[in-house]
């Protein structure tokens, strides 16, 4: 089955009260995958009084503008609940997409998971 049609996969762990989510899909392109991923992420944001979420992009090699839009929506939700959303381990080619769209100014982005976790302290 082409990966674009594979089920959206996330690995969710908790590290010192921070919800760490690692994307398992290499490509976050199609609407179905994006909807599945962000439905889960929005559930995680809703589950905590003050959502503290780190998104680990280590395995992500491609994402679309629709995925950027879903991230913006998630970021707004987390902000409205006085939480914090950090993005980490973004591949340089993907990070360039954030820079081109100036979304590197909207999101808190760190190079590694450890650097990302330090943001919450």
């Amino acid at each position: 089955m082409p990966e674009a049609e594979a089920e959206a996969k996330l690995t969710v762990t908790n590290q010192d009260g921070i919800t760490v989510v690692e994307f398992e899909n290499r490509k976050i392109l199609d609407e179905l995958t994006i909807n599945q991923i962000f439905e889960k992420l929005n559930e995680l944001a809703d589950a905590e009084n003050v959502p503290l979420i780190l998104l680990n992009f280590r395995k992500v090699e491609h994402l679309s503008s629709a995925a950027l839009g879903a991230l913006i929506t998630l970021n707004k939700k987390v902000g409205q609940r006085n939480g914090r959303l950090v993005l980490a381990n973004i591949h340089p080619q993907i990070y360039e997409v954030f820079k081109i769209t100036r979304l590197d100014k909207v999101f808190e982005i760190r190079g590694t998971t450890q650097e990302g976790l330090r943001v919450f302290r």
Partner: protein
Amino acid sequence: MSFDRQTLPHEVVIPSDLHVARRVEEDILRAVASVGYSREDRFAIRLALEEAIVNAHKHGNRSDPTRTITISYAIDAHRVIVRVRDEGGGFAFRTVPDPTSPDRLSVPSGRGIMLMRAYVDGIEYNERGNEVQLVKKNTRVSGLRTEKPEVHP
């Protein structure tokens, strides 16, 4: 590069269905890889093609699976040309809002065309606005990197 009517050697007409469209996208990417484009070029082509296809389906064809998307392309060692046409009435491609303006940064949509422009060497629409042509040069041959928009601090 002008949007001429040069016929491209490959043409596929598919229903407006993103799953079907992605199979064509993968065929194109495989062909591009086989000719020796760099990973960076393939990333750019995939990103731009994905945005063009999604725009054709969602905006041009209003997600109507009874409509069609026509994808035509030419691939050689020097450049890739892809055209994506939908059956919609077209849109005002000359007046797309800037998604990087401060009042639009928090808007979830509207970045597809900007990303296409950033990642290919040429982008043009037909007069009606329902067909886009993307041209990406092989940087291994041309030695030139696609100029990305300047990033201001």
